[in-house]
């Protein structure tokens, strides 16, 4: 009986490829992994955006309007809603000229209590050290 921490690290921007979306859907599926596990065992995910992957967290995405597909914004908010830690690299936001006002900070409108964590790469590094397996997307 135990918990396995998994880090889902997203490095690439959304939409052109399916890559970022799959990171989101896979990390959210940790909620139902228990059906395949022994009693008491759980998967504990952290979803982390680094490099150009921070662009997934830009808010006001209109993918549904233009392409009829769920936005990564919506998935990120769903992640917060299920209490999945979602981290974004502060240095990469700065490098790309993104401010906190431009990115998702919470999903309060959906009833989520957890907020986006703005983390330094040093903090992200420590989180990766704490995860037995790393899943880079």
């Amino acid at each position, binding site marked *: 009986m135990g918990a396995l921490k998994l880090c889902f690290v997203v*490095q690439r921007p959304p939409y052109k490829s399916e890559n970022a979306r799959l990171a989101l859907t896979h990390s959210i599926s940790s909620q139902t992994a228990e059906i395949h596990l022994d009693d008491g065992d759980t998967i504990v995910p952290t979803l982390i955006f680094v*490099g150009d992957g921070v662009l997934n967290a830009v808010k006001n995405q209109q993918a549904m309007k233009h392409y009829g597909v769920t936005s990564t914004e919506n998935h990120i908010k769903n992640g917060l809603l299920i209490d999945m830690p979602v981290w974004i690299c502060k240095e990469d936001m700065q490098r790309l000229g993104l401010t906190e006002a431009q990115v998702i900070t919470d999903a309060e409108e959906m009833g989520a209590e957890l907020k986006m964590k703005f983390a330094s790469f040093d903090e992200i590094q420590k989180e990766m050290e704490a995860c037995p*397996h790393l899943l*880079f997307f």
Partner: protein
Amino acid sequence: MKLAVFLSDLRRTEDTYERLKAEKLGVILVENGIYHAVMKEGGKDSPVLNKAGASFYVLSEDLETRGFTSAQVNPKVKVVNYGDIVDLIMNDYEKTAWL
């Protein structure tokens, strides 16, 4: 952590790679990542090979597929086969990161 990083491209995810730290770091060059082991752009080694303290490996099958031989590989890099990569993953490092 003891981390084996796989690089499979000539360019792309350098920003993550440059910042990753590990007490033991192995960098395994596969697919188009093998160019880091053989090219000298502007007469210089690939910046990938400047990662302090890392051990570098390149997959022989992917070198040869792309027209290079072991003789052309940078002396910092060890040439390995698939079986060697299995041993690196299962015995020498604790986790992997395919960047």
